[in-house]
């Protein structure tokens, strides 16, 4: 059975990627299962989707704990534990990362036994949640790596899954997907199907008896103030609002009033101050500021600048 996991951000089309790949396997005569996994997340938050494909009925269900292939559409997710990209990866796993960096760099950085392949990132995109066509590219690359899906089948699958968006969208997606498919040709067949766990020789689950614990300990309550401060929702941000204080007229802090997350404080000298630990990057403030004193810049560029600043 092929077990393939896609990791991306909400808005990057990972569900679509899993569907295109699922449909492609299905057309090639495979039994298929594909599914997205999302909770209370939103655009920009880490999500994942998965595909299982086999020549016999797929009875396995739920999250893939030991993937044969992991595809990452956004390399900023790799180092984020909450995204779970590295979960269950071992020497038999192929890790395909959409990145500007080389496979060697990632191999060293991650210190992993997994085989790393790079899907070269396109020219820089402003908003990462809007990486155009990335879902189709990821699906195409995965299809090529599996070696059992022809380009013709892939084209048919992509067309079926994106048809509802119109011919032009299909055409554009096909063009970039085709390049990604061809780019993977040297690695075609590197992803190998893995078997079911065997009952002859298995690792026993480390079951424990759950002890009774008094209510003070076992009730699901945190008796503490300001817990929302500790949850750094700023991680979801793909675009960063930046105040140009030269333009800020210090109106009556419209930005702060409109911010749906209460992430703009007003300092003692009556200036607005954005709390980047909690700003989700909705850019409502950018739209509302009367003198247009707030700009938006891509988060990854802001981060790079910060890093460069810290080094110098």
């Amino acid at each position, binding site marked *: 059975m092929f077990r393939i996991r896609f990791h991306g951000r909400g808005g990057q089309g990972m569900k679509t990627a899993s569907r295109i790949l699922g449909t492609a396997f299905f057309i090639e005569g495979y039994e298929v299962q594909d599914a997205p996994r999302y909770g*209370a997340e939103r655009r920009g938050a880490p999500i994942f989707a998965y595909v299982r494909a086999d020549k016999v009925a797929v009875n396995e269900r739920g999250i893939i704990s030991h993937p044969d292939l992991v595809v990452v559409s956004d390399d900023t997710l790799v180092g984020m534990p909450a995204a779970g990209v590295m979960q269950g990866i071992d020497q038999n796993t192929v890790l395909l990362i959409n990145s500007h960096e080389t496979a060697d760099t990632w191999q060293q950085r991650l210190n992993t036994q997994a085989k790393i392949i790079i899907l070269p990132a396109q020219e820089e995109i402003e908003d990462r949640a809007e990486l155009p066509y990335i879902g189709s590219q990821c699906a195409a690359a995965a299809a090529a790596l599996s070696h059992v899906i022809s380009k013709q089948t892939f084209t048919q699958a992509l067309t079926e899954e994106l048809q509802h968006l119109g011919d032009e969208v299909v055409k554009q997606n096909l063009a970039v997907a085709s390049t990604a498919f061809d780019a993977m040709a040297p690695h075609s067949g590197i992803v190998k199907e893995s078997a079911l766990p065997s*009952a002859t020789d298995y690792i026993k689950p480390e079951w424990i008896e759950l002890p009774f614990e008094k209510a003070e300990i076992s009730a699901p309550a945190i008796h503490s103030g300001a817990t929302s401060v500790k949850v750094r929702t700023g991680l979801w941000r793909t675009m960063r609002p930046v105040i140009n204080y030269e333009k800020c007229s210090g109106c009556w802090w419209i930005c702060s009033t409109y911010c749906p997350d209460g992430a703009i404080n007003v300092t003692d000298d009556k200036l607005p101050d954005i709390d980047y630990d909690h700003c989700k990057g909705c850019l409502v403030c950018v739209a509302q500021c009367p003198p247009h004193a707030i700009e938006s810049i891509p988060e990854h560029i802001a981060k790079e600048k910060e890093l460069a600043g810290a080094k110098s």
Partner: protein
Amino acid sequence: MTRKLLTGNGAAAWGARLALTDYIPAFPITPQTEIIEDLSIWIDKGEMDARMVTLESEHSMITAAGSAASSGVRVFTATSSQGLLHGMEMVYTVAGWRTPFVMINVSRGMSSPITLESDHNDIMAARDSGFLQIHCATCQEITDSVLMAYRLAEHKEIRVPAIVNLDGFYLSFTREPVDLPDAEKAAAFVGEFDPENLQFKGSAPLSQAMAVLGGGPYSYFRYEAHLAVQHALSVYDEIADEFADTFGRRYDIIDNYQMDDAEYVFVMLGSFATKAHNAVDSLRKAGWKVGLARLRIFRPFPKEKIRQLLKGRRAVAVIDQNISMGMGGVLHSEFATALYGMKDAPAVLASFIGGLGGRDISQQEFFEMINEIKQASDKGESLEPRLLYTENELTEIRKLQAIAHAEHEEIHQQRDG
């Protein structure tokens, strides 16, 4: 017949479409909402001739479903978890009206703490209501079960509503190949809704008696409803035969896998059974005589069939994806009731509680359950109920508790200091 990839929610919507549903009262809740989205799109495009009304709550939605069914139209609706419980007053009430319709429940664990993921505590709460309950393990089974559920619910002698249950995420958002029944054949199989004496009509005022009753008449009606639900067992096989003849797929009351010579048996409900199916294959390869009995029809409870099936087996592992606080697994108690006093009943009837709030059950855990019941049966001992829970999971909780505790202390110090 077309074979295509559909999510469990998509398969449920197709069931409603193929059954030529007339009326769909709706209210959104995760992970069910896609069902009503699909239906509304079809209605909007004119592909489906039905009326959808969005209500202000599940309580009203279920009231509307029962009322519409009494007026002689075929009704479909869907809910999940908190929504089902919010409508629970009316779940009991409309079942008491003896009105036939089909409701999907997409299983999701109950609050608190809150979860979006699947377990069976929501559907267990409707256990005693008078709704029939069909539990599905695959997307294919969902479409097929909706069709069969209408036949059962609308059966002249029975006439009660039915719930078709599917697991959130594991089925609701998961695409699998589904053979879509041919529309004409499906329509012929389900048949015209013949409401008989149910019918209310515009300009022909009637009243349906729902008076406040004393214990004697009240008992009569309640017990009759119970007998009607039980009667569904005797008409089920006929419907299943007809379905198999028409569509080539057979669904029994209990879905048995490798049961002929099985000494050790998994008993469970829902989509995790396909995982158990894999485990049975692996265990058989390793030389174990293992089988799987998945209850498809949970209400009515097929007590006699269970007795026949489990007679002479060595040990049974009942897996409950639910928990009755202060008692344990619901399925386990019901199996114990069914088997009590039977000669040659399995000596070990073990209770495993797992899969709460979408928690996965690994293949290794399935293997180990069989290992544990075999050891107990070899030693002639019984087994204490077990929660499938690992040391790692407790460590995770301990970390969270440490954080919560530290903050707790901090707050107190601030307050006191």
